[in-house]
């Protein structure tokens, strides 16, 4: 069972603000989401190593330097930048 405290803690870790009146509904929703996900655990299957379904190993690269991108290119998609840095603005 997901508790109200669990939801508050999750909200805090995700830096979300939750109104008191939303809390009960969110707790119910979260409980349903988890119940939904748990149907997967009930499934029977042979394959156990889900972590490595590709069965690949050691796909490695050699330690050879390749050219980096230009700074303009790197910063192109940044929401804000200053003097060649990505800029994270003060929250006002």
């Amino acid at each position, binding site marked *: 069972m997901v508790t109200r405290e669990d939801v508050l803690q999750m909200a805090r*870790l995700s830096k979300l603000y939750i109104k008191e009146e939303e809390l009960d509904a969110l707790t119910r929703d979260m409980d349903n989401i988890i119940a939904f996900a748990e149907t997967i655990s009930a499934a029977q299957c042979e394959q156990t190593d889900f972590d490595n379904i590709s069965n690949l190993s050691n796909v490695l690269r050699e330690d050879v330097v390749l*050219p980096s991108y230009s700074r303009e290119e790197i910063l192109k998609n940044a929401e804000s930048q200053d003097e060649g840095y990505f800029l994270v603005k003060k929250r006002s």
Partner: protein
Amino acid sequence: MKYELVSGLETHVELSTNTKIFCGCTTDFGGEQNTHCCPICIGLPGTLPKLNEKVVDYAIMAGLATNCEISHISKMDRKNYCYPDLPKAYQISQFDMPLCKNGYIALSNGRKIGITRIHIEEDAGKLVHQRGNTYVDYNRGGVPLIEIVSEPDIRSIDEAREYVEKLQMIMRYIGVSDCKMQEGSLRCDVNISLRPIGSVEFGTRTEIKNMNSFTYMTKAMEYEVSRQAELLDEGKEVTQETLRYIVEENRTESMRGKEDANDYRYFREPDLVTIEVSQEKIDRFKAMLPELPDAKFTRYVNELGIPEADAGLLVKYRRVAEYFEKAMEGTANPKVAANCIIGQIFRRVENETEKEAFDIALPAEYLRDLILLLDGGKIKMNLLKSTLEKMLDQGKPATDFIKEEDMGGIDTDTLRQLCTDAIAANPNAVADYLGGKEKALKSLLGFVMKNSRGRADAVEAEKLLIEMVSASK
């Protein structure tokens, strides 16, 4: 009450590969901000990381050099946290299947500090906080790290220091990192708790983050130990929290408490495949490891007869040890080469960086040839010393400075004559010496050495001078 320190360290060591862990960007230190970046290391959507083989190799070497077991199978995991230094909002690290585990470092007091694990991961970017804004440079983002996690086996601040010094020495020896604390390529998180002496249970611990100098680490630990001891003495409890050390004020400050501890939601990194390490590879790497500082130290002391203090100085830097081994090869007494290096050459390489590089103009072979002249009775120790200074100045072999006729020393009659001359030429020094000024003998000795062109044996000459001056009274 008296307390015992219980401490464990997490040490981050930046690997000296050419490229980052998952992309071909350079790992060079000090480039202009955001010029060593590509879509992979700034975490743009649609990119795929590919593991640098050198990172795995270096981590295996680090594990073998610290007596670890190497895992035949390991994998990468995502460690999720949201902070601007991580462009992907997760760090690719290793969680439950690290590459190396169950090792140890032996300290000089005979205690072993257990190493729980060594795993590979990517470094984060660098943040500059200014005027309330945060400026982000991702050049360091994606630089490969190993994190070496110790058991809580450390019982004193001295042990903590020696443990880190040994790690630093070993990593430099095997060439996987330059371990420069001032550049951040070696940094430690220190866990600290106290317990009453005799108690078996651990107390509540705090963790000081990111110590990047030996001095600050020692100071921060001293501060934290006394802070905790005061709390316990007052019957209060230590709060489990993460601390940062404020250098300017020599105190620690809370960064976050236990309840704010991150839930990293580790899960397997789906973009990277399993890492398999064969026994053959482990054996090959084991065979490739150089002789490590501890083994060298023991050999120098036990087999070469080098005093412990000197052996410690020689093994501290691999290049110094290699120079010493070349210079002493085939000579009669290894102590001579050791003394030349410690007494004379070290004066020319003063700081740690210079000793680490040990880039001196004089080839070790030239020093060996000079020592062989001494072994063959062709020159005396004092001539060896003065010639070595000239050789170090100019990087040239001994034969450039010692003429054939200077070799072979001088016989007792000639030495006696030189002493007689010295006494005759320096009546004031003789009077001073007889008047009780023992130092006055030095000018007589200097006269003899100069007129013998350094061939005279200083010890013999001094003995003879004292004898002759005293007799002239």
